[in-house]
């Protein structure tokens, strides 16, 4: 299971980074969501992988339990990344509609001026 989760995180991150390095906003946003999925799975795994165990201590017996904190962290991370993705989609849409261009870099006259843009 460890191998499966680890390679899933790696694969998602690799695909995400590849997409983020594209030039149009749409693949970049897709890449961002892939990377956030990767980090969510990664966070989940930081509490050690455990199957069929409740996230609570048992007062009466020594029963295996799973760490509840990463689950709370993942929940926060999911909410934030979800909201952020919505925001970036809106801003990208606004940029596309106002500039009639969905390139992520600003090559038109800016790079000609200073060449400093990322």
């Amino acid at each position, binding site marked *: 299971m460890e191998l499966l989760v680890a390679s899933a995180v790696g694969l998602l991150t690799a695909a995400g980074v590849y997409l*983020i390095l594209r030039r149009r906003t749409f693949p970049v946003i897709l890449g961002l969501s892939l990377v956030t999925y990767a*980090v969510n799975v990664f966070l989940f795994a*930081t509490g050690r992988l455990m199957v069929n165990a409740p996230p609570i201590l048992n007062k009466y017996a020594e029963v295996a339990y799973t760490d509840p904190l990463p689950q709370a*962290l993942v929940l926060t991370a999911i909410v934030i*990344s979800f909201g952020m993705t919505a925001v970036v989609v809106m801003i990208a849409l*606004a940029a596309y509609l106002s500039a009639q261009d969905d390139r992520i870099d*600003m090559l038109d006259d800016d790079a000609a001026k200073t060449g400093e843009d990322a």
Partner: protein
Amino acid sequence: MNHLLIAPILLPAIVAPFIIMVLRYHIDLKRIFSTASTVGIALISLALAIQAADGTVQVYELGNWPAPFGIVLVLDRLSAMMIVLTAVLALAVLLYAIGTGWDARGANFHALFQFQLMGIIGAFLTGDAFNLFVFFEVLLIASYGLMIHAGGARRFQAGVQYVVYNLLGSTLFLFALGTLYAVTGTLNMADLAVRVAELPAEDTALLRVGAMLLLLVFAIKAAVLPLHFWLPASYANAPLPVAALFAIMTKVGAYAILRVYTLVFGPEVEVTAGLAGDWLLPAALITLAVGAIGILGAREIGRLMAFGAISSMGTLLTAVALFTPEAVAAALYYTVHSTLAAALLFLIADMVMERQGGEIAAKPVMAQSGLIAALFFAGAIALAGMPPLSGFIGKLLVMDAARGHDLVWWIWGVILVSSLVTIIGLARAGSLIFWKSHGLSPQTHTVDKGATPPPVQATSSNSALPFVACFGLLAALILLTILAGPMMSYAEATAAQLFAPDAYLETVLERAGK
């Protein structure tokens, strides 16, 4: 528990939704509530600074959960100083934005402004690493809105870049926090410090990875080379008063580096010893150099100031990277100075841009040219670090603190040469904008093509207010120069507190056993 500790976070958190929901269509009421809230934050932070000045560390346990289990807010000298700085800066920027009518060019300036303050102050006050992430997100989300305030194609495009870059930064932050949690099993900073110190030396590969990732994240926020790419385009295309407020945002990154690498991965912790300093110092020096070169090469005034902000971050982080009490004290003094100076210059840049467009070129004489030129002159002196203003004292302190270091000649050389280059760049820009303009006749005036959204008619009703804000910032700089002695002794006490974290650890973890 002292409930005043959470007040500077709660106040904007309540005022901002109130402005959105109730005061939607009343710009005057929005302005009144926003200003009142900012003044309130300033007063509260002053009161907190007075409480923290004697060196006590105060803890606020949210929900009354004791420290390693619940989230805590911690007030010490460093966080008190930073929130006072934030409040002063915010007040000046807000007055400027109201005076120029910038706040009326989009719908939600004041609400976003308050959320931004909430995020910044929360980041300074929190004592929990994951909570730091959450407050980073709060301030970033608000900054996305402020960054694209008033719209325009180029601003939206720069906004997309800014958001994407920072989203990646946030993802890295989560990876770093996950790694640290996997190793130590806690995210409370004080608890982290205790557990990191106890960790066996052979078991630290993951921890070092986490510490390095965290440094990377903070370096993105602080715009350290080679992670500075987001800053010039976003600051130059953001509304410039907003860029002035963003002057404190890079300092949040510097603050986080300072906090985490003195408290958690302190200089005496063997497993991560030298990790931050060894990497940060060369990066900071290159940042400083590139900032200076950028100032020399900039052709738009917004971009000029953005590189000014980068080079001042370079100086600041050079001092931080030395990680000695003297250097950190110098860095703190320079933090206050560079925040105020960068904000002042961004506000001046906005005045120039509103009157004659953003390009640095000779144009016909603009309105109030003399006053603006005088302000620019003073601001340039402050930023470049010339006497008599506080930039000189700040740079002198940084260089003095570097005296015993191995790379002292590199540090001195880079600071001095880049100061010279900065002076040349600012002098070139100033003489083109303010002096050469006198030789031109008015009919050659052309509006800057498409680079900025068409200037909306400035509400000239209260046109004195922008100057009040600018001269207020200038007065703060002068005050910082005159009161350099007391300010420095406060900074030294702060640095001493940072390098002796026992009081912090005891106060935060005191009730953990109950």
